């Protein structure tokens, strides 16, 4: 459930960014980097800061 919530949050952020800056929707590396940052790097950083 936690994983699903995280994915929905990252998806919502990417969709919002993409709607206003559609250039980020064009590149697979950009989309993948955003996703990896959101579901891997950011949670790892938060865990470290706690």
């Amino acid at each position, binding site marked *: 459930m936690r994983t699903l919530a995280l994915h929905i949050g990252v998806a919502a952020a990417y969709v919002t960014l993409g709607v206003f800056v559609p250039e980020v929707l064009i590149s697979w590396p950009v989309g993948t980097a955003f996703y990896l940052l959101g*579901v891997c790097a950011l949670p790892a950083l938060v865990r470290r800061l706690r």
Partner: protein
Amino acid sequence: MSWSAHDLEPYAFQRHLGGKVAIVPLLIGSYSPDFATKWFVYGISTFGVDVGAEDPAEFHRGWPGVGFMHSLSFGIVIALVVLLVFRSRIWAISLLIGQWAHSLTDAGDTVGTMLLFPFTTHKFDLDAWAYAGQTNRLTDAAAYHSGLGFVWDGLWIVYGLIAWRVLTRGYFRAVIVPADPFWRWAGRRVPEGVLVALYRASFFYGTTRWLAWLIWAHVLHDYPFDLSWGGPHWVPAVDRD
């Protein structure tokens, strides 16, 4: 052309073929027909100089041009190269399936693909949605997400969500990793969580960009939906028939 189907179709094949295919070459195959050529279709402008194809649709799908990359024989050639170089049947077959899926999917638009090249340069097309790559990237996106193209992509998203177990960590461990030595090799260098995310990345990318383009085209802008065959008809579609 298709926008999200090429990101999503490999997961449907994965669902059905399980350990008989490998997801990485499946995805590479699915992206291969447009690899390194799409920017030239839309063109770019650098230092005041416009670079791009004179006839984008013909360059993209025709001959002379790079249209051969959308042929079934191109899939066979790259699969044979992979088989010879890496001696991996599963990589070769996966690459072939991905490339064929892309070529057949793109035959859904008004230009179509030279499926039987080099035997014929005839473009096989279903004419279901408009090819508008000659306009510009944003107009093309708006057109695609206003016609039957976005419906086609939507079907793959729905299918992927129904088959959600394919995206779980358990499936990744049980099916994806044993099928392809790449994952064991990568697993010695990268944490499993990152590998699972990499495995899911194209599904995430395809689904979210589909939704974002729809909102961009119909909420932020005012492009009308036109779900008629060959639509949307408000865009000047290329139709080589």
